[in-house]
């Protein structure tokens, strides 16, 4: 190994120095890390109780107009796969009269070119990709989201 190669390696390790230093600092003060784990990594903590899924069938406010509405009921064991879609047993266009559930919005019938299909588009078929249930639980992290309306009416 010649001198210039050694110098190269040394210079490169110098570049890594800040990373090493910061890691060392973090390791020294684990409490200052943003983490959901409130205890030492080696300690087995008792898991929190699983909160109940809200099952009130009452629509919730959307935080912005394009937000996929959250599901206001339980969906335990609802099959959504190649063979069957339990959600659509109520929310499909033809089945809403009996169920009185809201129909899936027209955007779900559009393909990516904006053309309407006869049935729910394959790219909108898997409901839980966007729509989720809500549980009655304290948020794990704080959220300072502000509704657009409150921003518009905010005094300068």
């Amino acid at each position, binding site marked *: 190994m010649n001198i210039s190669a050694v110098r190269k390696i040394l210079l490169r390790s110098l570049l890594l120095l800040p990373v090493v230093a910061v890691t060392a600092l973090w390791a020294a003060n684990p409490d200052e890390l943003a983490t959901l784990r409130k205890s030492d990594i080696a300690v087995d903590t008792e898991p929190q109780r699983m909160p109940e899924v809200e099952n009130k069938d009452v629509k919730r406010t959307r935080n912005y107009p394009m937000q996929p509405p959250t599901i206001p009921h339980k969906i335990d*064991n609802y099959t959504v796969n190649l*063979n*069957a879609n339990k959600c*659509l047993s109520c929310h*499909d266009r033809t089945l809403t009269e009996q169920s009185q559930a809201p129909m899936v919005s027209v955007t779900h019938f559009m393909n990516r070119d904006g053309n309407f299909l006869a*049935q729910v588009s394959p790219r909108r078929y898997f409901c839980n990709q966007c729509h989720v249930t809500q549980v009655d639980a304290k948020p794990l992290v704080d959220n300072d989201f502000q509704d657009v309306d409150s921003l518009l009416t905010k005094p300068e």
Partner: protein
Amino acid sequence: MIKWVKKTWKIAARPSVHYSLGFLTLGGFIAGVIFWGGFNTALEATNSEAFCTGCHEMEDNVFQELKTTIHYTNRSGVRATCPDCHVPHEWTNKIARKMQASKEVWGTIFGTINTREKFLEKRLELAQHEWSRLKANNSLECRNCHDLDYMDFTVQSARAEQAHSTFLASGEKTCIDCHKGIAHHLPDMEGVEGWSASAQQN
């Protein structure tokens, strides 16, 4: 043939020569108890989950699916085993179903569904047998445990209460009409009433 019947009748009608009346009546009674008891024991043995899952077709497919559902594990620990839903509890219907089940013995001997692929191919047909059976007997096997008369609508969710107090109470629908696929996975639901046609085009 007529000759044989006559001969048998003659033997049966003649009083016994060698055996006493007491031996014949008591012996007949005891033998009857043993045969009937044995028959019933054997019948009940075929009416157990261990017997059903003895075939790999049941063990590897439908039984594994049942394990994830509320009829296998739930908060109170009451559970349904295979015969609770698939064999009528009342004697006459049970025997009729058991005779039908000889087809299933044929199936397992000749391997009608002995691979996952064969099973999936037949799943719709097999499911339809069960759906039409439950439809025809007004979901009797569900109602052996779930009785409409004792349902407390006030502790049901709003949607369940709405559906049960109208469609179910009026007899317009029966359990299986809405509760398909609650214990096993569903086949392709194309064309099945109450299921969206969107699945088939996807």
